[in-house]
């Protein structure tokens, strides 16, 4: 008899059950019952946002060198749990062992790639501005703040880290809503994050009916940006409209006909750019 696991939320570095007491059954690709996950409530979403806000000064204020090492540490710990991730991706996505192995390896590579970006974002996106006057003027990218991420619904692990890692690398803190039907790889990832030197609250993970927390997060005044990648086109439009109430940044979803982007393709730096703000600082020059 195996020991069954109770899947919980990941908020502020802890693993609470949903405040609502609700759970949601999860099935594999063939419809067999895998277990229950916590179904996040509005209160859980609010708690996750306040945990992310609390963690923001520390994470955004950490040196880029430090953030890079923490991200690399995530990859290291994922590597150690490779077999678990392979099994969960295979069950969630209904792919064979070889395909699952490849997806997990690519996901780990993705985290390593973004780990290397933390101390290069400013070089790639910032500038010294040759202004017409005796001023030192420079522009630096800074994290946008608390980013609500609606994780891709199909690619349960690779898609998830492809949207989470750039937001984190840029210094944002995140509230991630896992894929509604395929949440188990995300739950496993939260256990990795908890043991990877990621400060409590820098990443918060909600499971459940994805559209519900997405709506609450889109209107939340303390969420600065919304990544609606995991929303179907109609919900995406609704979330964008809701985000207008607080002039939230809504990350562009660049995929044709509402299809999920090809997560195996090289990611590029669009997401790093989209969840940073450019700050221009001026100072007079003189003696």
């Amino acid at each position, binding site marked *: 008899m195996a020991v069954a696991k109770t899947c919980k939320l990941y908020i502020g570095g802890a693993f609470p059950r949903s405040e609502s007491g609700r759970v949601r059954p999860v099935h594999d690709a063939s419809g067999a019952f895998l277990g229950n996950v916590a179904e996040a409530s509005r209160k859980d979403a609010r708690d996750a946002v306040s945990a992310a806000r609390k963690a923001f000064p520390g994470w955004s204020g950490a040196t880029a060198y430090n953030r890079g090492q923490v991200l690399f540490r995530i990859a290291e710990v994922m590597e150690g749990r490779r077999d678990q991730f392979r099994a969960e991706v295979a069950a969630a996505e209904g792919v064979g062992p070889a395909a699952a192995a490849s997806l997990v390896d690519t996901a780990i590579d993705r985290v390593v790639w973004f780990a290397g970006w933390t101390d290069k974002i400013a070089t790639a996106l910032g500038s010294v501005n040759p202004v017409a006057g005796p001023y030192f*003027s420079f*522009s630096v990218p800074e994290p946008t703040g608390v980013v609500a991420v609606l994780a891709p619904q199909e690619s349960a692990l690779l898609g998830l880290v492809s949207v989470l890692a750039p937001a984190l690398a840029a210094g944002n803190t995140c509230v991630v809503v896992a894929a509604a039907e395929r949440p188990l790889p995300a739950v496993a990832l939260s256990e990795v994050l908890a043991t990877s030197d990621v400060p409590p609250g820098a990443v918060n993970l909600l499971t459940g009916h994805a559209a519900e927390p997405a709506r609450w997060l889109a209107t939340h005044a303390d969420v600065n940006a919304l990544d609606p990648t995991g929303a179907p086109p109609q919900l995406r439009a609704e979330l964008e409209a809701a985000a207008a109430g607080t002039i939230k940044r809504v990350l562009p979803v660049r995929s044709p006909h509402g299809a999920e982007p090809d997560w195996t393709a090289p990611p590029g730096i669009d997401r790093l750019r989209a969840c940073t703000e450019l700050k*221009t600082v001026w100072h*007079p020059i003189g003696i």
Partner: protein
Amino acid sequence: MTFWEYSPAPESAAVANLQARYRMFVDGEFTDGRGEPLKTLNPATGEPLAEVSTAAPSDVDAAVRAARRAHEDVWAPMPGSERAKYLFRIARLVQERARELAVLETLDNGKPIKESRDFDVPAAAAHFFHHAGWADKLGYAGFGPDPRPLGVAAGVIPWNFPLLMLAWKVAPALACGNTVVLKPAETTPLTALVFADICLQAGLPAGVVNILPGAGDVGAGLVAHPGVDKVAFTGSTAVGKQIQRELAGSGKRLTLELGGKAANVVFDDAPLDEAVEGVVNGVFFNQGEVCCAGSRLLVQESVAEALLAKLRARIGTLRVGDPMDKNTDVGAINSAAQLDRITELAAAGEAEGAQRWSSRCPLPEKGFFFAPTVFTDVQQSMRIAREEVFGPVLSVLTFRTPDEAISKANNTPYGLSAGIWTEKGSRAQWAAQRIRAGVVWANTFNRFDPSAAFGGYQESGFGREGGRAGLEAYLDF
């Protein structure tokens, strides 16, 4: 009077070459719009300046279609090096007609001639120069080797810097290969229509730039038009929210430059005389009708009294009056409606218990004028500390520790700009890092340059204008 009287030094209104009637500009021609014509007023006298034709929905449609045609047939296929030369020509023509444009801007907007002459028009020309150089170098801008134009860009701009805001929208759009339909503000359409004439003089192909005067309904129709690929809006946060909601799910690209409530933070080691100049420039430049105006002065308690004494003395010397006088420091408020809003917010400041001090400078009897005003004993919860006044009204708050200064500076949903005054470089950098604003001026204020990105955090909008970052809004990559 504690300062010298100045003799009047009026600029000649004749230079503006003012016409009785102005027409909209679509597909390379001046045409009569089918909308109800509007009268634009001289805010310094309250009297009509000219009649301007406005766009009806059918005109919006015609303009967007002309822009689409010009984009597909001429402007996008043209080599960047050729587009560059058109922008260069436009920059030169703006410079050549600088005096005409400055005088016309002052007549239509009410801003002092010394500001339109020394800031607005030169800065507009500089934007065209800067972007002329980008047109054939887009592959080096960091958006991949072959970024492409988006198509038709709609610009909706405010009345505080009519020609400069036009340049901020038109120059990058054209450099990146887009064509433009621009709606100038209802109260300040004139320099945009002279700009249309400059486009004709430059030989710009028909339809590349289209100008549609009108009120908010024309802007709303333009923004919602299915033929528009990109919307760039500068204006109020309330309208920005409407536009973002309207465009949700449409796939149109959007950038917003909205309101602000900038903190100007004066530390106890600041050079006070310089800080006073910076605070005055920060909040009274353009009558305070500036989205990045330093309207909240945060001063360290130990120097507050000394700074306020210097500040009142300096503000008392500002000359308020005829914008066409070259010695005028503070001109006319742009419209009666805006004057009402400023008056109402100032009254709210008094009603909520702040101490009001207004300069005793004489105000003209006609026109829309508001004396430079300073509120002390301001609490963070008061409307004058939270809402954008968009007028010559300064709210003063104090702080004891640097951390308190940062938390007060950031206590706003806006995040456009901030000022820092201190002699200590490390403290200036420390504060600049912590204030959540798109532009931070340390020991200076209100500096702008086409090579330096400008734009806000939070409810001050998203997207940047100027420099490499500003191109992103007009490129597909």
